[in-house]
Each structure stands twice: as C-alpha cells, then as structure tokens.
C-alpha cells in the first residue's frame, strides 16, 4: 500500500511542480494568505470572486489555486488573531485568547513562530491522512448504489447545516432553500423548465458564481458598510528573528501540537465539523488536561499551538470526503466542488481513477503550498501587517467591481450581474433575520445530484422508501442522521428547561465575538 501511495505521490509531485501549476499554486496560497489577514475578507468571498477567473484555466491549475486560497487563508487568519486580537476568521477566534496576551507581553513573534510550526505539523498530518485514507474510502464508495449515495448526501447536508454556526433549524431551512435554488432550470430527465417563472435566462439554472457572490459578496458588503473596526497596531512590530521560538517554548508546545493535530483529523472525518469546531474542541481539551489551567487566557503558548495545529489538520482533512466521495463537508468545499463541476469534472469516487492528475496533483500541491507558506509567511508578516491598515472603505468598492466583472465574465452575460444583485439583497434580508446563508451553497451544489440519485433509487426499488433502511450501509447513514437530529432535539429541550430555570451554561469556551465584518463561513 505504501509503495503504490509513494508511486502516486511521485506522479502527483510531477504534476504539481510543472511550472504552470506551481505558479498558480503559489499565487493561490499568497492571495489566500493576504486575504486571510485582511479583516472583512475571507477565503469564501475570495474564492467566489476569483472563481470566474479560473474558467479559462486548465482544471488542475484552477483547483490547485482555489485550494491554495483556502489553506493559505488559514495562515493569514492566525496573524490577524495573534497580533491584533481580531477574530475575523472563525477557526482562529480561539487563538486570540492566548495569542494576543502573548503579543502584549512582547512575545508576539514567538507566538507566530509556534503558529507556523504547529500549522505545518497539523497540515502535514492532514495530507498524510488523505494519501492513505482517500483511496480506501473510494474502494468502499465504489460499491455504493444510488440509495447509499443518497443517504450519504443526506447525512452530509444535515451535518453541514446543523453543526455550522447559528440555529440548527435555520441551518436546515437554508439547506432546503439551497436545494430548491438548485432545482431552477431544465429538469434533467424531461427537460421541463422548473421554478424559472418564465424567465428565459433561468432555463439553464442559477449560476453558482452569481449565487456565491450574491450571498458572500454583496450581502456581506451591505452588512459591513460603515462598521469601522478599530485596529490597534501598537504591538504588531514583529521582527523575523523574534519568530524563532526558544527551546523551552518549543518543548512546551510539542505535545499540545500533536494533540491538536489528532483532534483536528478526527473532526475532519465527521462530516460537517470543520476547522472551527476542531479548534474550539482542542482548546477546551488542552485546558482541561493542563496542570495549571489558570494559565490559559493569560498567554499560554499551548493555547496557540494546539488550536492552530488542529485547524490546519482539519482543513486538509476536509478535502478527504470532498475529493474521494464528492460530498463536501462545508461551504468552501462545496464551492471547490462547484469549480470542478464547471470544468466538466464529475465529483465522486471515480474522480481518483479518472483524473489522477487532479487528485494526486492536489495532494502534492498541498505540500508545496504549505512549504511555500512557511517560507513566505516569515519575511512577509511585516507586509501583511501594513496591509491591515487598508481601510474597508477602499476595499469594498474595488471588491464590488470584481464581483460585477467576475459574474459578467463567467458567461459574458449582463443578466447574471442582475441576478447576483437580487441574490445579494435577498441574502442581506436573510442575514438580518438571523440566518447564516452559507448552507444555501451546500444544498445548491449537492441538490441536482441528490435528486438524480433519489429518483434512480426509487426507480430501482419500485417506489419503496424502505430501501434506505434495508440496505445495511445506507441504514448506517440514515441512523447517523437520526442521531444528529435526536441530539439537536435533546440539546434544544435541555436549553428550554435551563432557560426556564436560569441563565444558560455555555459548553464551549467563550471566545471574543467576531466583529461585524466577519466573513460568512
């Protein structure tokens, strides 16, 4: 098994190191790193904005770049948390708790150094996991019939919507809304235009770029306008040589680093639990097993190492179900799958055998990208900090232009700019009503395949819904769905009882709330 993996990996490096692909991979991680630092812009918005630019590129280069933005953004988000106490990127919110006190003590450089090392350790483990686990998963998934695929998608959708931020009920409603938006356009089997209300341009369906940019571009601009964030650059003078952690610091953070990595990789395997949950769980664990938990929150280096390692291991692990099963764990992954589909590539277990260049090239590019990030991150931190001073009032009009031209460029069609505008207004209304619109995209991307498989499963079983519980693998997935729903109902009932008695106890450690300009994630 190790030999085939090595041979495949060598092949992957061949793909990733082709000058063209290498260039786009580096561009991706750099852009990701940059927007990760900028408050008010996140990987999700950036991938949406740059998505149209990739239409003209080869599939491998496109996916390497877009993936690079995602994990590159995680490195940037940590800088923002540690130096400025701005938890703009949800997975790094918990890093603020100990990262910023360290910065105030003048040890910001050390914290950043430890972050880079932990991130690399976490990411390396996530990638290794992907190399060995993905082919195994594919072997299992190739046996799946339509019923199994359907139940698995149901589990993915349910987990993605209930475990994300905000009320689970609203999350599910958003997913269903996404599924409905995915129905718009001609029916796959009969060609009947559905839910298009006589608008000719909608016969081809809603464009994924328009949906993503409306929800994560325009709606977010409307939410963030005139919400100045106070940026305090007092402590952010970090020199490169401060970043080498001292021996004791390193020794202190090695074990937390490995524990964080483990937690992150476990979280990646449960669909729907992305990096944000991983970092919170690992911080809480680290605090619990520490000999002096009182140290946490005042600048414990373990409180930086552990959540960062787990974030990165979970970010890389997130790619496993996405690439091997075609089931995205969260919205960013759904967007990447959308990018693959635009390139004409059908996601699913056949991806590795049909497009080995994409799969192994992507894995190899993770190594290349992570090494590039470690090398680049260190000398460029000064530059990133300067970038932080670019005010949002210059950022959003420029980004709005990129939104317009990007949507137009996708199909050279002005109608879609209008579509984006309408979706943007609608998205802002959803935000005002307390919805987090991210799961809409998850439903939208999975919707058509879900319907296709559901219809096929029903055709095979002659309309017997029992097929989903009669086949053992499918029954397991359905069982997990029931557990998820049951757990949510249980939590809700407990909350209701507690709120009747008194104040609610928080289970997760309370991190500083993200400022108003947090990206939808």
């Amino acid at each position: 098994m190790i030999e085939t993996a090595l041979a495949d990996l060598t092949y992957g490096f061949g793909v990733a190191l082709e000058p063209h692909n290498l260039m786009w991979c580096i561009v991706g991680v750099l852009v990701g790193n940059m927007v990760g630092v900028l408050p008010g812009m996140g990987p999700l918005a950036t991938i949406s904005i740059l998505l149209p630019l990739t239409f003209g590129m080869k599939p491998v280069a496109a996916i390497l770049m877009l993936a690079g933005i995602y994990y590159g953004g995680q490195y940037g988000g940590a800088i923002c948390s540690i130096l400025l106490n701005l938890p703009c990127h949800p997975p790094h919110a918990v890093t603020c708790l100990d990262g910023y006190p360290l910065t105030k003590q003048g040890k910001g450089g050390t914290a950043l150094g430890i972050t880079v090392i932990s991130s690399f350790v976490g990411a390396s483990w996530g990638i290794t996991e992907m190399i060995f686990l993905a082919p195994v998963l594919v072997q299992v998934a190739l046996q799946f019939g339509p019923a199994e695929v359907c139940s698995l998608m149901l589990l993915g959708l349910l987990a993605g919507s209930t475990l994300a931020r905000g009320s689970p009920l609203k999350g599910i409603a958003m997913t269903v809304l996404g599924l409905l938006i995915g129905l718009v356009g001609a029916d796959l089997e009969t060609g009947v235009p559905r839910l298009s209300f006589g608008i000719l341009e909608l016969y081809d369906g809603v464009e994924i770029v328009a949906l993503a940019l409306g929800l994560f571009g325009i709606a977010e601009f409307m939410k963030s306008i005139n919400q100045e964030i106070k940026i305090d650059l007092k402590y952010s003078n970090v020199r490169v040589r401060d970043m080498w952690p001292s021996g004791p610091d390193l020794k202190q953070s090695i074990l937390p680093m490995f524990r964080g990595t483990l937690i992150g990789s476990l979280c990646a395997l449960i669909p729907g639990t992305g990096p944000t949950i991983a970092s919170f769980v690992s911080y809480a664990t680290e605090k619990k097993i520490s000999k002096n938990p009182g140290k946490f929150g005042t600048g414990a280096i373990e409180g930086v190492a552990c959540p960062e390692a787990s974030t990165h291991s979970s970010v890389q692990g997130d790619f496993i179900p996405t690439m091997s099963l075609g089931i995205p764990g969260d919205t960013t992954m759904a967007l990447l799958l959308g990018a693959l589909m635009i390139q004409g590539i059908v996601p699913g277990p056949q991806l590795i055998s049909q497009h080995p260049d994409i799969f192994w090239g992507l894995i190899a590019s993770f190594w290349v990208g992570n090494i590039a990030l470690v090398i680049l991150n260190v000398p460029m931190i000064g530059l990133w900090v300067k970038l932080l001073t670019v005010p949002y009032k210059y950022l959003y009009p420029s980004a709005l232009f990129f939104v317009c031209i990007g949507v137009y460029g996708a199909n050279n069609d002005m109608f879609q700019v209008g579509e984006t505008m309408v979706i943007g207004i609608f998205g802002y209304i959803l935000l005002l009503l307390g919805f987090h619109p991210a799961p809409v995209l998850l439903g939208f991307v999975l919707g058509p395949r879900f319907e296709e498989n559901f219809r096929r499963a029903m055709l095979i079983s002659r309309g017997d819904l029992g097929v989903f519980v009669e086949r053992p693998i499918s029954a397991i997935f359905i069982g997990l769905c029931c557990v998820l729903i049951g757990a949510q109902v249980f939590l809700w009932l407990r909350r209701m009882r507690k709120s009747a008695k008194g104040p609610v106890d928080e289970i997760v450690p309370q991190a500083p709330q993200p400022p108003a300009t947090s990206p939808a994630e």
Partner: protein
Amino acid sequence: MFKIKKDYYAGGLMILLGLIAAIEGQNYNIGTLRQMGPGFFPVALGVLLIFLGLLIAGTSLGTSDEEEHILPERLEWKGWFCIIAGPALFIIFGKLGGLVPATFACVFVAALGDRSTTVKGALILAAGVTVFGVVLFSYLLKMPMPVLKWGLS
C-alpha cells in the same frame, strides 16, 4: 401582550418561499414515488420548507419576551443603496458604454456609500480601479467586453 420577534418573520419568509415552490411545482407533472415527474422535488421541498418555517416561528414562542429589532441599530440606507446601485450602474453603463464607464460608475457610486469617503477620494479610487480593471481584464485576460463604445449594439 404580543411581541414582535425576528423569528416570526424568519419563519414567515420560509413559509412563503415554500408555498411559492409547492404551488409552482404543481404546474409540472408530479408523478409517483416510483416514476417521479419533474414536479415531485419542488413540491416535496416546498412542503418541507413550510414545515421548517412553522418550526422556526413556533420554537421562538416560548423564548424570552424582549422586543427584537430586525434592522440593525444604525440604518445605512445610503450605504445599502450605493452598494446596490454599483452593480445596477455596471449593467446599464456596460450595455451602453463599455467597460470603462461601467467600472468607473460602479466603483465611484459604491465608494460614496461610506460616510467618511469624500467625492474626491471616490473619484481617485474609481479612476485607479478603472485603469487596473482595463489592464487586467481587457489586455491581460482578453475579456470580450468592449473598453469603450457608444449606444446599444
């Protein structure tokens, strides 16, 4: 006393959207479970969304009885208007005059949405983005949108 809550509207909106989908879906052939028609999924999802909307509104009945505001504390009508006007102007000027006027109008008006931006600042920003946009999209990426033109064609 009846208090207005965010979740009543949130649930109501979902019920409305579900109704639209379910009613519109009946115009297509629904079929049977065994042989599903194009109308099956819209109707099924629409009904599900109505159900979820009822749950959202229903579960908020028992919670705290403070009045909730739906609009944010500070109303940014000007900002919201300017952001929406950006893409709208991009469409109009893009159809009439090409990339340069479309970009300029979009960025200029959107920039004015911020309270501290001056007209001069917005002009400079719009000019800068226009130059950058033309170089990147017209010359480097060869997007088939005319840089400058006159009238509908």
